[in-house]
């Protein structure tokens, strides 16, 4: 008996030691592996390089995360909520003490392409280097050159507020071994130049997959190239699928997609929540060729199955009938003037609700939040004075919102399922950034 116990303990201890040794080996490999310096292209036209860098900063929407509301541009400090705690973005102005004033183009490339700080530390993938790694060295250098022209801001970085195990940066070596391979985008010779440009922007600077693909328990994007849609962790918005299938952008024309990206509104839908920020601060500044290239690329992506639906129970038939009746009545009082009797809307000012996957898809959260808190699409050059959706939260009870959203999600061909009052209640408070 004693011998069996001792043997068992020995095997257990041995296994633990083996796992620790393996993990240590993986981390060491991640730390010590050679890093591709990329292909540095000599710069002849510095003005053109700066213009390109500024454009890429827009395309990558660097400012949105690296600027706190009302604060100095690119000086960092914005709180990014994650399932592991709060990450505070860093100062990327050329300030020597707090920013990237002492960085070289090589250091910047190391961060963007390899996801490592100047001192070699592993960066948290809240900085989307899993996408930015696709940028060419030439584009990385242009971005860096332009950031160096910003006014330096003497604003210290705030330390992150994270929980174990995320507090231990070396453990990110394990995460990287599973979920990150540094690799510049390689054009597909079988596709057009336009398609390849779209792919480069969507997968690289645009980092669309950061929101539009679901993440696993350690916050790594699952199948980031599929853009099959998913819940955005901690922000609690649903990012709908962007592929060319039936549940994605299959019913959208390339012109519809381009309109939404460029102006925030389109015949098929309107930007809401975080997407308003993306359009307002990033996409509206891209040129027509690039926007069209992104639309072409997205439309070409193969169809994917729908992400898992939220698990709201389908009510008993009599109860369902009562809910739909109440929801229809509320719709007639509050919504019909703008969104129409068949949910057809009046684009571009009032988006359609029928066939709108952000509203009638597997997750009800966007519809709930739209009803509770309303919202404006962004002011853009193409739509400078957007129409606003009123917040009905102060006026309606959770149960009324649930009935209204259930009605919208089960009418005019929508098959989104029912919503409960407790689900509505979860989203009542407007998060403050």
């Amino acid at each position, binding site marked *: 008996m004693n011998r069996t116990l001792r043997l068992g303990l020995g095997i257990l201890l041995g296994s633990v030691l083996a796992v620790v040794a393996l993990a240590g080996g993986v981390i060491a490999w991640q730390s010590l592996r050679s890093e591709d310096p990329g292909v540095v292209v000599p710069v002849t036209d510095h003005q053109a390089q700066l213009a390109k860098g500024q454009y890429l900063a827009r395309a990558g929407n660097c400012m949105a995360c690296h600027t*706190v*509301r*009302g604060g100095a541009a690119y000086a960092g400090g914005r709180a990014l909520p994650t399932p592991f705690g709060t990450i505070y973005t860093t100062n990327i102005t050329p300030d020597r003490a707090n920013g990237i004033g002492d960085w070289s183009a090589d250091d910047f490339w190391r961060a963007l392409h390899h996801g490592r700080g100047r001192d070699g530390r592993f960066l948290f993938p809240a900085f989307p280097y899993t996408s930015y790694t696709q940028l060419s060295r030439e584009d990385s250098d242009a971005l860096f050159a332009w950031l160096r022209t910003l006014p330096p801001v003497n604003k210290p970085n705030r330390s992150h507020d994270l929980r174990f195990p995320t507090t231990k940066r070396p453990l990110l070596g394990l995460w990287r071994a599973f979920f990150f391979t540094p690799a510049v985008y390689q054009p597909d010779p079988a596709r057009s130049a336009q398609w390849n440009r779209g792919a480069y922007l969507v997968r690289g600077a645009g980092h669309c997959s950061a929101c539009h693909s679901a993440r696993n328990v350690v916050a790594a994007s699952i199948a980031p190239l599929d853009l099959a849609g998913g819940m955005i962790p901690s922000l609690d918005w649903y990012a709908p699928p962007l592929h060319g299938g039936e549940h994605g952008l299959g019913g959208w024309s390339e012109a519809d997609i381009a309109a939404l990206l460029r102006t925030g509104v389109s015949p098929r839908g309107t930007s809401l929540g975080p997407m*308003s*920020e993306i*359009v*307002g*601060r990033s996409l509206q500044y891209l040129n027509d060729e690039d926007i069209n290239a992104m639309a072409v690329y997205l439309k070409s992506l193969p169809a994917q199955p729908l992400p898992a639906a939220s698990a709201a129970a389908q009510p008993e038939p009599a109860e369902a009938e009562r809910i739909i009746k109440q929801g229809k009545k509320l719709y007639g*009082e*509050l919504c019909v*003037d*703008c969104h129409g009797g068949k949910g057809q809307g*009046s684009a571009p*000012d009032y988006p359609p609700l029928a066939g709108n996957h952000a509203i009638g898809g597997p997750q009800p959260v966007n519809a709930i939040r739209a009803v509770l*808190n*309303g*919202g*404006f*699409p*962004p*002011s853009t050059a193409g739509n*400078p*004075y*957007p*129409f*606003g*959706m*009123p*917040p*009905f939260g*102060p*006026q*309606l*009870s*959770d*149960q*009324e919102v649930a009935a209204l959203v259930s009605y919208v999600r089960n009418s005019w061909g929508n098959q989104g399922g029912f919503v409960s009052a407790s689900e509505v209640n979860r989203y009542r*408070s*407007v*998060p*403050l*950034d």
Partner: protein
Amino acid sequence: MYPLRPALQSRKRGARMDYNRPMRLPTTNMKKLAAAALGTLIAGGAAMAQTPADKPRAIPGMAERMAACIACHGKEGRATADGYYPRIAGKPEGYLLNQLQSFRDGRRRYPMMNYLLGHLSDDYLQQIALFFADQHPPYPPPVPADVSATVLERGRLLVSQGKPAQGIAACASCHGAGLTGVQPGIPGLLGLPRDYINAQLGAWRNGERTAKAPDCMGEIARALSPEEINAASSWLSSQPVPADYAPERVLPKPLPVACGSMPGSSASAGAAR
């Protein structure tokens, strides 16, 4: 996460608010809207010739675009009977623009407003300010204050005389003798709910509301006790609003304190830099 306004917290969910109007938001018969918009465009085109270059020209369909605002601020921005959300109709244009920009840029905190305005341009906020400054719906009768006559009298004295011993200026010394406000940056103080006034002075005391530096109201609010704030708000909210109530065009005399939100006041001219 952030507390709702006090009035809402105590309200029973499910009981519909007593709005003094049917909650039928934009009365948008699309054709009517299109016709109206076209009419405004033509009229606007005719008026454009005389419009001074520095004054933005109103854009068509603003009432419909503003459906998100009137949900809480009432038809034409006249406020509702809910007792918290302030009237925005007829406030000075510069004051409204300051508030809209402050909400967007985080100087003033109210999650719903911060969220709604987050991605609107200065150009649009200017239009919104212009639109609501031009609305002049009637005021409802004042709500009698449920405080003692002593408290009311204390409020009246604070409003009309301030706290001279501590050097705190009277409300009336900046907001106008009739508390009407002054163009372009100082709002009127009558016709607002007591809860709203209390919440604003409280927000200034704890830093949730700030204005362009020098933030005169922040200094004043921090020099007042909660009892004094309640006395002043009780008196202000229970006063009837005269029929010709409108902001004064110009400051009758220089402001007694420096205020960054009031351009052209001698006190703010240097400090705003």
